[in-house]
């Protein structure tokens, strides 16, 4: 046996209890995969509770990786390999298996206790049942084998048990012809202060690998070629880290100190954690406020003071920022608010992804309070779009909302990262003096942008507020004509930004055709995958992904008019589709899947095929 099977792409899922270390093995496998030159995408999936009761469905933690020799756009819909450490992990993941799936199960996790915790009856035999559905189930007593392997080790029983994830990882490494060195080095570093733990982990990893090699139970090993990647320097990146890095870059590029204020909230908190670690080295100010209102208010204060002021938050926190966002619009100060969307409404499902805050971003304020809205479409794109959000805020003196989501925030992909020197310049609007006899804080340039005179600058003393302002002078004004004019100017200023953003591109496919699949944000991967497949099947289809959602790119209407049908795929109940219908009077069709997960490729595909038939 042990034939080597060649594969173009592979989806592996590690799933177990939250305490089983699945995120760690997932990350190790990811690094190893990336360094080997495969393209990849990952999707970690945590339980909502910190430590949900062990063994239960709610306690399952999973890590999914999709990699291959071809371009990889999503973490994948169906598993090639599913590693399950207990019955709950299997039950939670059955949906994404099919007749090609290989399951590796730790049978210790299927004892009567675990079966019960997973909601099975005493005489249920889930492993037997699943055999009907999938290709093969390898039943291995990983727990026991680990404990045998570590019989000699001096670490205690609990720690021994914790090593079993390494056994599983060893087995999977063997299956995919990997080398252990990199992971061993990682273990060496991680446990440098505790040599018994270090040895135990390494030994178990090796035992797992050897188990693959020496037992005869496995039918195949798999070989995946390197991807044809563009040359250059790569790193693995998730969306939240990319976002944090972009903020520091934008601050440096615009020559502004970075002021970052936030209140912890899933899934945005990691941005705080990341920037807090960089605070000293990069001279940034990180402020954990008492709530989201304070976070954005303090950012407005910092912006008046001349900083690049940024907030990050999610659903409920975004709601709380509504009033102060209006103030920032009225004051015409630069400000970036990053909304890492999660499933709503209200508290919703904080650990699930969603795209339901678009209309709120565009319309959700009292009064006429327009502001630019941008969205990132992949983990690494979080870097570019965050940078763009900062550029627009600073150069156009306006608050900007940047939309990301949980799926992007936590997902990883390889990133051919840029050099700081190559990033677009950002010119801030600060002034040190004025030609005007009396300084006019609300006089504007040809793009309707006002200047930024910060405290400490002689002779530019002025007052700003949220009351309607007289044109140019900025003094309080209750004049009706002035008010209408100011509303129009503020709207026009935002609309003019369309001249400073790229035209809308077609991601894949032709500029005209039967159907355009339009998306925004994290649906990028799913739509791209489907489009590729359908292009291969010679369908007349194109993928258009909108990153600048307000204002839209100037050519968007014309572009969309070139297709017989426009299908807008979103993880919400229809939001972008409303903006397109309203602005262009195009009968765009919504495709909505709102299950806290990326859109399923196969579901989207069936819908498109149905639409194409009716074309």
């Amino acid at each position, binding site marked *: 046996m042990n034939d080597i099977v060649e594969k173009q792409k592979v989806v592996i899922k590690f799933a177990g209890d939250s305490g089983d270390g699945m995120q760690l093995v997932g990350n190790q496998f990811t690094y190893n995969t990336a360094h080997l030159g495969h393209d990849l995408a990952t999707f970690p999936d945590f339980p909502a509770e910190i430590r949900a009761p062990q063994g239960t469905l709610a306690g399952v933690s999973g890590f999914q990786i999709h990699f291959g020799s071809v371009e990889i756009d999503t973490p994948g819909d169906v598993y090639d390999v599913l590693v399950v450490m207990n019955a709950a992990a299997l039950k939670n993941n059955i949906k994404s298996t099919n007749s090609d799936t290989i399951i590796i199960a730790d049978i210790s996790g299927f004892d009567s206790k675990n079966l019960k915790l997973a909601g099975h009856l005493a005489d249920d035999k889930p492993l037997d049942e699943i055999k009907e559905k999938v290709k093969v189930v390898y039943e291995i007593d990983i727990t026991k084998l680990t404990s045998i392997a570590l019989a000699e080790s001096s670490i205690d029983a609990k720690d021994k048990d914790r090593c079993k994830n390494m056994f599983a990882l060893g087995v999977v490494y063997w299956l995919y012809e990997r080398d252990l060195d990199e992971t061993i080095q990682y273990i060496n570093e991680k446990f440098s202060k505790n040599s018994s733990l270090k040895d135990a982990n390494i030994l178990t990893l090796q035992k797992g690998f050897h188990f693959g090699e020496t037992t005869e139970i496995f039918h195949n090993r798999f070989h995946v070629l390197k991807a044809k990647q563009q040359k250059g*320097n*790569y790193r693995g990146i998730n969306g939240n880290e990319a976002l944090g890095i972009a903020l520091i870059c934008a601050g440096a590029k615009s020559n502004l100190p970075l002021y970052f204020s936030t209140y912890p909230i899933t899934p945005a908190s990691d941005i705080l954690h990341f920037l807090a670690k960089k605070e000293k080295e990069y001279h940034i100010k990180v402020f954990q406020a008492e709530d989201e209102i*304070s976070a954005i*208010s303090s950012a407005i204060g*910092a912006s008046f*003071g001349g900083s690049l002021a940024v907030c990050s938050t999610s659903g409920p926190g975004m709601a709380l920022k509504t009033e*102060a966002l209006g103030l920032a619009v009225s004051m015409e100060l630069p400000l970036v608010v990053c909304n890492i969307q999660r499933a709503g409404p209200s508290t919703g499902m904080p650990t699930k992804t969603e795209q339901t805050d678009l209309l709120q971003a565009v319309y959700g304020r009292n009064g006429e309070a327009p502001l630019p809205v941008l969205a990132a479409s992949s983990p690494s794109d979080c870097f570019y779009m965050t940078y763009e959000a900062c550029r627009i805020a600073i150069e156009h003196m306006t608050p900007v909302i940047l939309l990301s989501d949980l799926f992007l925030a936590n997902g990883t992909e390889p990133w051919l990262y*840029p050099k700081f020197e190559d990033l677009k310049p950002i010119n801030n609007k600060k002034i040190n003096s004025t030609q005007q006899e009396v300084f006019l804080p609300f006089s504007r340039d040809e793009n309707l942008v006002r200047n930024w005179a910060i*405290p400490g600058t002689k002779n530019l003393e002025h007052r*700003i507020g949220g009351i309607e302002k007289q044109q140019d002078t900025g003094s309080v004004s209750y004049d009706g004509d002035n008010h209408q004019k100011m509303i129009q100017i503020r709207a026009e200023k935002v609309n003019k930004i369309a001249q400073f953003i790229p035209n809308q591109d077609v991601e894949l496919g032709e500029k005209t055709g039967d159907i355009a699949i339009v998306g925004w944000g994290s649906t990028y991967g799913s739509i791209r995958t489907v489009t590729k497949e359908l292009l291969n099947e010679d369908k007349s289809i194109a993928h258009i992904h909108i990153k600048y959602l307000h204002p839209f790119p100037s050519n968007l209407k014309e572009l969309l008019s070139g297709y017989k049908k426009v299908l807008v795929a979103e993880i919400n109940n229809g939001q972008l589709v409303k903006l397109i219908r309203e602005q262009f009077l195009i009968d765009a069709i919504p495709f909505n899947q709102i299950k806290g997960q990326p859109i399923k490729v196969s579901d989207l595909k069936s819908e498109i095929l149905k639409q194409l038939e009716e074309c």
Partner: protein
Amino acid sequence: MLDIEKNVLTSKDFESNQEIRWCPGCGDFAILKQLQNVLPTLGIPKENFVMVSGIGCSSRLPYYMNTYGMHTIHGRATAVATGLKLSRPDLSVWIITGDGDALSIGGNHLIHLLRRDIDVNILLFNNQIYGLTKGQFSPVSEQNKITKSSPNGTTDKPFNTLSLALGAGASFVARSLDREAKHLQEVLKSSHEYTGASFVEIYQNCHIFNDGAFDKYTDRKTRKNNVIFLEQNKPLIFGENNEFGIVLDGYKPKIVALDVNNSINNLFIHDKNDKLKAQILSNFSEFGLPEVFGVIYENSILKKLNTDFQSLENDTNAINLLISGNNSWRVL
């Protein structure tokens, strides 16, 4: 911070060109005036002052000061000022707020600012009413008060502002009055000189909706019996002819007549650095004792405030390292 301007700045320099729109007779005028009198004397360049206010009659003040100013939203001046000061420790930041603005909608940011001891000056214009919205009760309106929104009298008991500030961990707490020009000036100066969050409550007469609320502290006839002006290391004395004093009976403050039995030497001596004494002082009004004015508490621990925040010098290497992380690889 001394600079040559020190000698030339006058109160005139701090007057803006905006028409002042308070009601005739409003106590806000007097406070504005004292602020315009004090700021030029502080040795700080005019462009380094920022007035930050919320919403309310009092919060209009920044428009009338020819400094940098922000008229923000209701209750958030404290939060806005926090961000401004954290990012610009070089500025002299003054928060202008009302009893509704600071204590009703803005209560949370206020107590957190005090806890964090941000180095700003908070001037709370307390007129015990909502002025701008035309006369509803505020969280410091006295119980049973009849207002537009309490035609049957309020039922809630008011905050004791001093206790609230001290309870939140305030490190500088003072009180003054619109009508006491000199006293107010002194308090404003002390507030400025203190490094840390300075909480200054100023009783302010709302001529239209709560006229005379503080008459008993300002009226010639009554004030001497109702007011104690605190001075550091001085005993607590009051009365038409300074004939009464306060003693501490254990931990309980009591009024005594100054006579053969009670000499001035046995009185409660004001020590603004003593937190327990400050807490006792904050309860005076609840115990029916005269109201105290002046610097009630000032934490004596010297603080070094963090000023390590600046524009990032374009250190391209450091930033490129941040971008690459330490786990990158090369595709050839």
